[in-house]
Structure formats: structure tokens, C-alpha cells
């Protein structure tokens, strides 16, 4: 045991969008993660509890939930770090429709990746020689800085602008767009800049930096969005894109 407390008081969201929190008591264990707590409830207390996880090691990005008011990846969040008074409140991610209990519908989140043209547009074919990418160019370093996104939705759930303006593409989709804008092999930048410069695009961001603070991969979507704002504004002023 890491502390004197032997039990944990846990409130879990049950039901759909208009559900409620229900209380459970879970044994406290050493090095216990929030995902361990949810799994304990489902396996020992209520098998009807719905939640989503896969890898349990911070790679797949599927286990994000709202933990004591903040979106977090639950598999890498230790109870000791977040349950200050021996209490945990675990809910579904905000800004996404609740399917049931702790599982949200991520469809809109990923559709926004499509809207932001987050798909690589090749400039060469498989018959061309392999592109030589220098890792120390500013563009490649900017692309590398954002490439580790695991699509967990934490930044999207913590974003005030998404909360106020559902049309907003969100930090994850825009960070993906910024990665591709800086990829010298990509040929889709005009369409991409056009997409992110439209209503609900990068210029809607208020730079509150919640995404940067909450990102479990310590990425900086705010900086990526600021880069997109500059690049799209320059393209607009040059007449390369139209609104």
C-alpha cells in the first residue's frame, strides 16, 4: 500500500447523456491506476458497466475519461496522483455524446480529422525513389513535434472553444493538419489550408492552452494551431485560398 487508506470511494457516471453518478467502494491497491479502478467495478461489482480500453499502456488512446473534473488517459493516471481525499469521480469525456456510462461516441471527433484534411496526400508514387527527409529542418521538426498524437480525445474534451462552438475542428484535428502542412512529401496543402481557414477552423481558437496543459503526450496543439493561423492567413493574403 502507498498510503494509509484501504478503500476508495468512487463515483461513476451511469446511463446515457441524462444519466447520473453512482457510488462504489473499491479496495485501494499499490500503483493502482484509474483504469484499474473502473475495471474492478466492472469485474467485481457491476458487469453492466460500459467503458472503453485496449492496450492499458498509453499507446492506443482509447481509455480517456473525465477524472475528478479533468480529462485524462486513465491507464497511465495513478490513483495516488488524482484522488487527494480518497475520492474519485469518473465520467465520460466532455464535448462528446455519451453512448453509455463511460463510453462516448467518437464519430464526430474523427469526422473532424477528415474535415481538416488530416489524410496524407502523396506527391509521389511507389515507383519514385524514397524521399530523403532531413530531420533537422524547421519544417520537419515542427511535424515531428506533433506526430505522437494517440487520438485519445483528451484535448478535444478539455477545449473551451469546442464547448462553445461545436463546429470548431478541435486541437487534435488541427494538430494533425499542422503535421501534414510541414511534411515535405505531402501535396495537399492548398486544400488543407482552405479547410482549416473556414468557419470553425484554426482561427476560432482562443489560445486558452487547455489542450497543451492536458495532453497526456505533452504535445503542444496550441502552438500547432498558432502555426496554422499564420500559414493560412499568409495563404489568404497571397490569394492562394478563398473564403
Amino acid at each position: 500500500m502507498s498510503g494509509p487508506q484501504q478503500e476508495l470511494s468512487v463515483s461513476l457516471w451511469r446511463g446515457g447523456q441524462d444519466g447520473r453518478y453512482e457510488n462504489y467502494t473499491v479496495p485501494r491497491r499499490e500503483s493502482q491506476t484509474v483504469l484499474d479502478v473502473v475495471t474492478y467495478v466492472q469485474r467485481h461489482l457491476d458487469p453492466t458497466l460500459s467503458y472503453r480500453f485496449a492496450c492499458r499502456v498509453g499507446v492506443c488512446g482509447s481509455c480517456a475519461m473525465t477524472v475528478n473534473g479533468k480529462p485524462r488517459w486513465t491507464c497511465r493516471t495513478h490513483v495516488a496522483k488524482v484522488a487527494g481525499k480518497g475520492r474519485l469521480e469518473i465520467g465520460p469525456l466532455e464535448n462528446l455524446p455519451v453512448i453509455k456510462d463511460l463510453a462516448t461516441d467518437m464519430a464526430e471527433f474523427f469526422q473532424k480529422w477528415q474535415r481538416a484534411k488530416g489524410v496524407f496526400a502523396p506527391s509521389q508514387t511507389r515507383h519514385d525513389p524514397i524521399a530523403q527527409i532531413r530531420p533537422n529542418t524547421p519544417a520537419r521538426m515542427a511535424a515531428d513535434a506533433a506526430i505522437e498524437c494517440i487520438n485519445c480525445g483528451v484535448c478535444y474534451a478539455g477545449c473551451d472553444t469546442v464547448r462553445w462552438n461545436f463546429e470548431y475542428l478541435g486541437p487534435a484535428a488541427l494538430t494533425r493538419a499542422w503535421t501534414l502542412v510541414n511534411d515535405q512529401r505531402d501535396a495537399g496543402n492548398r486544400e488543407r489550408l482552405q479547410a482549416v481557414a473556414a468557419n470553425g477552423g484554426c482561427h476560432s481558437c482562443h489560445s486558452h492552452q487547455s489542450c497543451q496543459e492536458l495532453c497526456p503526450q505533452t504535445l503542444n496543439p496550441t502552438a500547432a494551431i498558432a502555426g496554422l493561423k499564420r500559414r493560412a492567413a499568409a495563404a489568404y493574403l497571397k490569394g492562394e485560398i478563398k473564403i
Partner: protein
Amino acid sequence: MNVRLYVWQRGTAALMAVLVPIHIAIIFYATRQQLTAADILSRTHGSVVWASYYGLFVAAASIHAAIGVRNILTEWSPLADRVAGWCAAFFGGVLALLGFHAVIALVLT
């Protein structure tokens, strides 16, 4: 918000970053010199420079504020984007009308 509105809002903000300090300096000067309204109007009457300076100020402030109000309405009110745009344009129009009225009074009185 889209890139067109963004460029206009940031552009007018950049302009006002220069115009506002000058305006504040003028206020300080006028109060420290204890200038009366008649003193001020005697200096601004018929002046193309003052008309241009405050005309530019009114135009920049009206555009900048209208875009900001549009953002607030689209994010914080249930209005549709188009309706919010018209409301903000009306607000900007009223600001411009009042501002240009004041500028005309300043240089033609």
C-alpha cells in the same frame, strides 16, 4: 471565425496598437494643459490631419469591435451564425455612425 474575419480583426488591432497610445497621450496632454472644449475645437477645426487620424480610429474600432461581438454571439448565444453576423454588422454600423458623427463635429464645428 474564419481567416477573412481573422485578418480584418488582427489588422485593425495592429492599427489600434499605434492609434490608442497616441489617443491616450492626447488625453493626458489636454488634461495637463487644462484645455477647454473651445481650446480643443479651435485646434481641430478644419484639420485634415485630425479628421484622418480619428476617422481611421473610428473605422478600425468599428470593424474590430463588430468582429469581436460576432464571435461572442456565435459562441455564447443561440443565434445562428448568419443572424449573429447581421447583429454584429448592425452594432459595427452604429459605432461607425456615432464615431464619424463625433469626428465631423470635431473638425467642422
